[in-house]
């Protein structure tokens, strides 16, 4: 048992570190280091431009999409090298945030299902960040139940005509392309009538509208489709096989091992170490210490769970299922941590933004937290996944499984 690199890993780390030291945009390092809570903002620069420049620089030197084959713009690196790179990239990895969906989900789906000429055309500029991709799955009628989606695609000659609405699309407003899951046959049960495409987001009939979130910020969009035409050669997988194609996409979503999850704990520990309460320093207070200790072991438990997965990668093994707990634990923890930090501030905890304690850091965390417990699989869906895939418990009884999609009720009451 040790935390040491193998000689090959150490060599790779040295090379990566040297290149990052020589090339990373150091002027933003401090700002990036502080923006660990779901939003990356630079005060005096356009984050999109800075991110694209860094990504292009990496791609030109062979440091983009490390795990992709070289012919598609990657490095053909091993999973453990990818982890080492992300450790070394550190805060600059925040700049990859807007490419996560494209690199983590759209790219692998294209690689598995697109025609070869499309792969050679579309994947390299996706890897280099010159083109940004989004994923168009969720709908107002299909969130956790993605297969309940209603956006229609109808065949018209060599093209498909798409009408409908998507929601919660990250980055749609700056995306060039997207992968799109549609319903092509509403007369068969819901999982069987879906088909996947990729499309140009500048196509006529695509309209992107930002969602104003409960936190007040806008990171997501609604995307409307009105008679949008997609050529059939942009279909990914067979007609009616969209569900299986989407599983490839979603499996890749969960393969981001070694990615640090924010728990809010380091911020809270630091805060409590300097905060003075009526009776003295917060960190000397019995109740505060008990709370901190409980969160400390969750944060360290997540860290070392991730280390176990990385070790499996290092040995060339597939990581076990234990990594599936990360988002579930971190999501509710960050919400509890933020709530407690405000509790320690007393009545003044209500003041947010620049006027608030630590420029409203914990207030912002509190307002963002509900989203982390929903996005990318709600806490309840994550528990179902653990129960079914890890513990082997039965799936839910699905009352709509054998019902044609157009016969499934659409309203709860009235």
């Amino acid at each position, binding site marked *: 048992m040790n*935390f040491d690199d193998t000689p090959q*890993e150490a060599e790779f780390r040295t090379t990566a570190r040297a290149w990052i030291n020589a090339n990373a945009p150091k002027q933003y390092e401090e700002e990036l280091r502080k923006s660990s809570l779901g939003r990356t903002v630079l005060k005096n620069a356009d984050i999109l431009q800075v991110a694209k420049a860094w990504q292009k620089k990496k791609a030109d030197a062979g440091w983009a999409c490390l795990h992709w084959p070289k012919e598609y713009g990657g490095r053909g690196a091993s999973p453990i090298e990818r982890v080492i790179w992300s450790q070394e990239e550190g805060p600059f990895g925040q700049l990859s945030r807007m490419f996560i969906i494209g690199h983590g989900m759209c790219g692998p789906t294209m690689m598995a299902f697109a025609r070869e000429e499309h792969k050679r055309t579309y994947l390299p500029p996706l890897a280099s960040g010159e083109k940004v991709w989004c994923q168009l799955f969720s709908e107002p009628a299909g969130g956790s139940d993605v297969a309940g989606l209603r956006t229609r695609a109808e065949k018209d000659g060599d093209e498909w005509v798409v009408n409908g609405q998507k929601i919660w699309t990250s980055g749609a407003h700056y995306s060039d392309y997207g992968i799109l899951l549609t319903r092509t046959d509403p007369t068969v049960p819901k999982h069987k009538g879906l088909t996947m495409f990729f499309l140009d987001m500048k196509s006529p009939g695509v309209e992107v509208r930002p969602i104003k979130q409960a936190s007040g910020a806008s990171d997501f969009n609604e995307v409307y489709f009105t008679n949008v035409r997609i050529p059939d050669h942009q279909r990914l997988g067979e007609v009616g096989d969209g569900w299986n194609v989407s599983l490839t996409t979603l499996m890749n979503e969960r393969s981001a091992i070694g990615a640090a999850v924010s728990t809010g704990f380091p911020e809270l520990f630091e805060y409590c170490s300097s905060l003075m309460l009526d009776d003295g320093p917060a960190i000397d207070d019995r109740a505060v210490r008990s709370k901190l200790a409980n969160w400390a072991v969750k944060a360290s438990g997540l860290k*070392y769970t991730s280390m176990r997965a990385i*070790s499996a990668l290092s040995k060339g093994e597939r990581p076990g299922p234990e990594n599936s707990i990360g988002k579930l634990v971190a999501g509710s923890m960050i919400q509890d941590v933020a709530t407690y930090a405000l509790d320690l501030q007393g009545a003044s905890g209500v003041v947010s933004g620049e006027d608030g304690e630590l420029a409203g850091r914990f207030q912002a965390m509190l307002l963002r937290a509900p989203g982390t417990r929903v996005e990318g699989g709600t806490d309840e869906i994550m528990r179902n996944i*653990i129960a079914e895939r890890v513990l082997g*418990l039965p799936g839910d009884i699905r009352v709509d499984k054998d019902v044609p999609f157009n016969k499934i009720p659409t309203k709860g009451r009235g």
Partner: protein
Amino acid sequence: MNFDFSDDQKQLRDQARKFLSEKCPPKAVRVVLDGKAPYDKELWKGLAEMGFLGVAIPEEFGGAGAGHLELCVIAEEMGRANAPVPFSSTVYLAAEALLIAGSDAQKKKWLPAIAAGEAIGTLALFEGKGNPSPKNVKLTAANGVLNGVKKPVADGAIADFAVVAARTGSSGRESDISLFLVDLKAGGVEVKSLTNLDPTRGQAELTFKDAKAEPLGAAGEGWSILTQVLDRAAVLCAFEQVGGADRALEMGRDYALDRIAFGRQIGSFQAVKHMLADMYVSATLARSNSYYGAWALSTNAAELPEAAAAARISATQAFQHCAKNNIQVHGGMGFTWEFDCHMYYRRANAMALGLGSLSYWEDQLIDRMRKKNAA
């Protein structure tokens, strides 16, 4: 990076699991639970023959000379099997105290006997309510004899010798405390068994009346040695707790698959699934924290105090959580004496207190994290 046990260590774990599933099935645990024996003597003998009692004891003192990682994987299996033997008292507390502070003669006298299953040892620290603290040690040592009362002492009624914390000064500092070795069969010690939450592991009150004692380690070093012993034991107990938590989770999972209610497996209800998923989360966090503790213990790293406290808290919580919800999944049957669920519930809650309670370790963890940050 290889943050995992080696193939040999995993093989040892499998070997221990196989041995314990044969020699320590629930009905063997019940013999002790029902008060028909103070501990499972046959199992104790078998553990010695397998080399498990002395796995971390150097060969020159009759052990296998492996290491603490090997002891961790065996501990996990002892917890999984709910083994009714004085393993933690003897191996984690008494043997570790001897390894840290014992003279050559003391090691030669006791360690081979421990490895051979011929001597049971324990630590006599507590004196009634309260957590580990120098000020709670009132038992006195003077002129080579001890006077005072220790309780509860784990496995105290069956132990052959004890490591005893005694007061040798009155300055109000840690250096007031020294450790002593007492042969409990040599007279001067009255032993009274105490009823306790977990009858598969005895607790006793030991009254020392001019009991002969020899110093263990230097005078005034007692508290410092004790802190090291407790840290090591915290990691090793965490593995027992992780093993117990996993077993309780499996029992709940199996029952949820077998039991039909409302015309379906109860494991198909989200209320039950989610409870089990949360148990898995606790058990996984505990396992990962314990692995870190094992690394720190086996390398004697500067991180050990912090890692031990984190493992202790996480594993205590996980075992308690899994044991109590295992009963909940079982419903009414889980609350019968006949079902095994309560054995894990008892063990989980007894183990949560044995080395000092959660609130004590929470306090320790924060202290140790602050020290690290200050350094």
